[in-house]
């Protein structure tokens, strides 16, 4: 494998150039030789390969190309070299390596237009999917025996019970941060005692449910999309249909119901844990005893704050479940789609939840639940 091929150039009486090569013509040594050959300016009429002991297809290719550009004749090739030369002779091509690039001024408007069309198709798709879910739900109500209780309980465990530790930790820390940071600001007005109001109202009305929704979207919405998407890829969903089982009834409805129910429970749980976090800060940093903090919560937080949170939670759960299942069912083709659809499920769920939360905030204030 060592030593590049040696090149010798001879000129005969008629001024024609003959090239003789010696040594190995292999992929490992052909780089420098190729540059040397490209540097030759004279017209070559003959290429002598009798001194070449080793050759592979890449060496043969370089010789073939050289012969073709100079219309030279190859002589002295060993049987093996001849065979390789024949093999690569007709394989030349000048096709491009990459598909042609569309210029920016065409690409950007095109992508924008596609985005608009995709959005339109997406909205129609989601509404259609919601319709299918409602029809499936209706047929389940007419045949309650078919209701997938087991699957729903299993999903409730995955969405709800397994999420307790992480959501608990998150809410506890948020409660601590709100109480501690709120106290620092309120202290400037000598209103430290109002920290209780701050923690109680903001967690029950907004943050408890909102943060839980984001967490559930990341944990379970993505799982829904990935699970159903993988089932679509392995044709499990198609197999169900051919047996006469509705994938909406078996896969989608249990997940959506589980997300809807569990969001209510998790949202309430998160608010309570956040208040406990606030009370811990009250005990150690603000001089408000733990149980006094909790009693004050009952006095300063109106009951409708709890209702605001509890009404929002199932709607958010529905959106998360719907987005996860919709994107899962839309997977088709290859495994790349699963990742793409999972991301889309989480992003669209969180986006919809935050937009809807803004609407809810205005709505509840307008009806006097401010």
């Amino acid at each position, binding site marked *: 494998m060592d030593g590049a091929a040696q090149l010798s150039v001879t000129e005969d009486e008629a001024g024609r150039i003959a090239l003789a090569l010696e040594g190995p013509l292999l992929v490992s040594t052909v780089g420098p030789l190729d540059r040397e050959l490209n540097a030759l300016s004279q017209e070559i009429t003959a290429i002598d390969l009798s001194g070449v002991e*080793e050759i592979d297809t890449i060496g043969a290719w370089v010789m073939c190309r050289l012969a073709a550009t100079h219309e030279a004749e190859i002589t002295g090739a060993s049987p093996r070299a001849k065979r390789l030369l024949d093999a690569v002779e007709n394989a030349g091509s000048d096709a491009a390596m990459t598909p042609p690039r569309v210029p920016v001024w065409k690409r950007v408007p095109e992508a924008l237009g596609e985005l608009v069309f995709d959005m339109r198709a997406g909205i129609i798709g989601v509404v259609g999917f919601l319709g299918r879910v409602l029809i499936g739900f209706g047929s389940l109500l007419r045949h309650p025996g078919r209701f997938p209780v087991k699957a729903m309980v299993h999903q409730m465990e995955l969405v709800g019970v397994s999420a307790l530790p992480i959501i608990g930790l998150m809410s506890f820390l948020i409660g601590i941060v709100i109480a501690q940071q709120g106290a620092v600001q309120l202290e400037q007005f000598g209103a430290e005692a109002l920290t209780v109001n701050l923690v109680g109202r903001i967690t029950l009305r907004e943050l408890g449910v909102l943060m839980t929704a984001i967490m559930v979207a990341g944990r379970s919405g993505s799982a829904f999309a990935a699970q159903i998407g993988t089932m679509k890829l392995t044709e499990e969903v198609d197999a169900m249909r051919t047996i006469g089982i509705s994938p909406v009834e078996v896969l989608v409805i249990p997940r959506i119901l589980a997300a809807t129910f569990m969001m209510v429970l998790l949202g309430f749980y998160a608010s309570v844990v956040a208040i406990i976090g606030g009370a811990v800060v009250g005990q150690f940093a603000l001089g408000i005893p733990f149980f006094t903090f909790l009693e004050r919560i009952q006095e300063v937080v109106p009951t409708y704050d709890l209702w605001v949170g509890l009404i929002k939670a199932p709607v958010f759960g529905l959106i998360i479940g719907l987005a996860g299942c919709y994107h899962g069912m839309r997977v088709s083709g290859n495994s790349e789609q699963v990742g793409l659809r999972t991301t889309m499920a989480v992003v669209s769920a969180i986006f919809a939840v935050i937009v809807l939360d803004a609407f809810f905030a205005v709505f509840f204030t307008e009806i006097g639940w401010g």
Partner: protein
Amino acid sequence: MDDTLHPRFSGNPPVVVEGLENKFGDFAVHEDLSLEVREGEILGVVGGSGTGKSVLMRSIIGLQIPSAGDISVFGRKITGIDPDQDLGVRCRWGVMFQGGALFSTLTVGENVEVPLKKFFPDIDDELRREIARYKVLLSGLPEDAIAKYPSELSGGMKKRAGLARALALDPELLFLDEPTAGLDPIGAAAFDSLTKELKETLGLTVFLITHDLDTLYEICDRVAVLADKQVVAVGTIPELIETGHPWILEYFNGPRGRAALSTHQRGEQG
């Protein structure tokens, strides 16, 4: 095989496996497995599902660290070397995985360029592109496939593109994992003849895992049978049948085995 045609042959077996043992937890896939691949042959590797054909291949190419045993490739011991390290022999073999395992962000042509760029950076860009192009065509793909991305190719075309990448460096040793699985019979036969042709023109040694009885009859010089955690027999198909091993008899004398044999015989007479 005319040895004078292939000066790269050294006379030593390119792959030697001795006493190989592979364990997953308590479950042993291989126990005291030994195998030798001879120069210039197409060795077919067969065995029931789960007998560890792919694990054997992965062990030889250094992706699976065996629990015990020695594996030498081109006379160099590769066991006990970290899989991510350069084994020193990687530029001398080519591997085609079952699904092609093409890099999905690169076009077919760029896929073939990758090993050339890695091992021989002193080749000019223009020459490297030319090499990639003719390798793709040599693997039996049409010209317009060069600029396509793997996601735009059919299963059979992906396999051919995988083969083109495996052949990029003109390897001496080629590993093929179920090259004809999932191909239609015409495509499978074409792939078989392509393998045979490449082996003869390039002087390749081929390690070929297959379930395809036609492939075994048509192009394999020898067949190694994996059963009972070992290579129970290696030889030509008549030699294998003579051993009388029950699995081998069932494999080659079953309805599919007989059908493949009669096709092969008809082919030889015609």
